[in-house]
């Protein structure tokens, strides 16, 4: 029995979400008394495979092939369904990312006849048996899900586990394999970096004022801007929902498929706090949240919670700040 992690790479190294999936896998394996194997795929990945084995003490399987330089779901899954069965996995963990997990996990589950549980953010144990927790209904409900069969494919929500940090007494063993498989129905064309719109501002800002679907009308935008102007190194961010309304460019999106930020202060305005958004901002040092719904999940990660209407609260807050500045 074993737990497998299928990592994803950016360039030569595996992503943060992959290191988080390794942490989840080690936790699962510890309970079940199984061994963890980390799989890394690419054209030339010996160095990265050895680095992972050295940092984790876990077994690493490196699969090399000319067609594996860029991610290609078709060829990746065709190779994985060849190598996975002989490893008799009980769990296969992937990052819950658009980059790899969205395409790979459901396809692998179908091919392997396995259960598929996606966007897992916590594991509970009933005795030794794991039950997987995932959030639905815009963050309002937590589902507890268990597999019905012996093998399961899991995707691990980014931000739910910390990246793996270990102090192994000795490096894990590294096995390298080569595959000459090539894709037949698809062709990967490469990655284009995000365009300028706001992305860098968000990374450099001390304070981020973020707008959600609760920003209902265009006149609210000037309120958000007025709030951001109070702070010196500030930037305006948005939830996916607010971007979809057309108020903000997607370069300002915070959360899964957007930016991951960790400013000194994050002010969430009219953001309900779907887990996809929270995973992109929960590294912020201090979080203030304003929402009309006292039960909004954003309040679970906020230090200061304000239940109020943005149209009333922001002008009042701006006024208080002005008064104190005037006095100073």
């Amino acid at each position, binding site marked *: 029995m074993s737990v497998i992690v299928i990592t994803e790479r950016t360039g030569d190294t595996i992503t943060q979400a992959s290191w988080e999936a390794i942490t989840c896998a080690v936790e699962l394996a510890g309970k079940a008394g199984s061994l963890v194997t980390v799989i890394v795929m690419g054209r030339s990945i010996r160095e990265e495979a050895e680095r992972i084995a050295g940092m984790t003490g876990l077994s690493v399987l490196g699969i090399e092939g000319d067609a594996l330089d860029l991610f290609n779901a078709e060829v990746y899954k065709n190779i994985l369904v060849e190598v996975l069965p002989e490893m008799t996995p009980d769990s296969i963990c992937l990052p819950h990312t658009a980059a790899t997990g969205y395409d790979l996990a459901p396809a692998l589950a179908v091919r392997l006849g396995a259960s598929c549980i996606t966007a897992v953010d916590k594991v509970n144990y009933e005795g030794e048996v794991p039950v997987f927790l995932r*959030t639905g209904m815009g963050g309002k409900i937590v589902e507890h899900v268990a597999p019905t069969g012996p093998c399961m494919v899991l995707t691990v929500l980014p931000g739910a586990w910390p990246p793996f940090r270990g102090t192994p007494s000795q490096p894990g063993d590294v096995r390298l394999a080569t595959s000459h498989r090539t894709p037949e129905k698809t062709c990967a064309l490469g990655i284009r970096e995000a365009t300028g719109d706001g992305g860098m501002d968000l990374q450099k800002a001390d304070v981020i004022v973020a707008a959600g679907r609760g920003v209902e009308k265009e006149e609210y935008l000037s309120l958000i801007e007025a709030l951001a102007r109070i702070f010196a190194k500030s930037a305006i961010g948005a939830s996916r929902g607010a971007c979809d309304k057309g108020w903000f460019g997607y370069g300002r999106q915070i959360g899964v498929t957007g930016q991951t930020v960790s400013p000194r202060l994050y002010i969430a305005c009219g953001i309900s706090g779907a887990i996809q958004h929270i995973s992109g901002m929960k590294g912020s040092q201090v979080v203030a949240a304003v929402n009309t719904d006292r039960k909004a999940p954003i309040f679970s990660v906020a230090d200061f919670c304000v239940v109020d209407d943005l149209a009333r609260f922001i002008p009042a807050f701006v006024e208080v700040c002005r008064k104190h500045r005037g006095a100073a």
Partner: protein
Amino acid sequence: MNILVCVKQVPDSEGLITIDDEGMGIVFKGAYRMNRYDEYALEEALRIRERGDADVVDAVSVGPRRAASTLKRAIEMGAADGIHIITAEEPRLTPFETASLIASYARQKEYGLILTGIMAEDDMHCQVGPMIAELLGYPCASSVIFEEHRGGGHGLRVEREIEGGRREGLELSLPAVLTIQSGINRPRYPALSNVLRARAQKLIEIDAASLAPPAPRERLTALRYPDIAAKGVFLEGTTAEKADALYRALHEKALI
């Protein structure tokens, strides 16, 4: 080429969602509507038809009787036929069951392209589209934010939106499955002619049992409310008092 768009009926986020007494089912008070991501998928299919790369756009939905209104909405937006694979209200199907039902319907029809939203807003699995592709042996691209036909209509070039706002290019041969990310287009409002057509037109109804769905591979063991044991404090009082309290709190931490 014909296109099949998979649409799901979801509870509107403005409604009230609670858990039943057994802790196993969801009680919803409010309006149901089409999953927003599926609206983008339907709009993209209609645009492909309008630019001359497809002949017919159909919509399919797996769900209980009430899901018929979402298929009517799809016809109002411009879908030709609405195919309703009818299930019971409870239990909710797993993504694998839903994908298997759609795949066994689509297998007989030879659609050149199958579109879904990237995920359903309610359970957010991100599974049904890629599973349909796997069951039919079609290539798949998830999180698609741009698509165009190439090679005389035999293939597609797409861009997938991945983490950090980056875009990954991919070519796929047809038939194929795409899961559509929001923001790829602006979904249209229904034209009056289609609204009238939807009122008169009957949906194609299929009993889910007749498509021999597989057994589920996951089981729900419980539903819970999230732990909103807020780590922080709720500022109370009038709006002015709350504004003052927040100012003082941020000032104390030297954030303002």
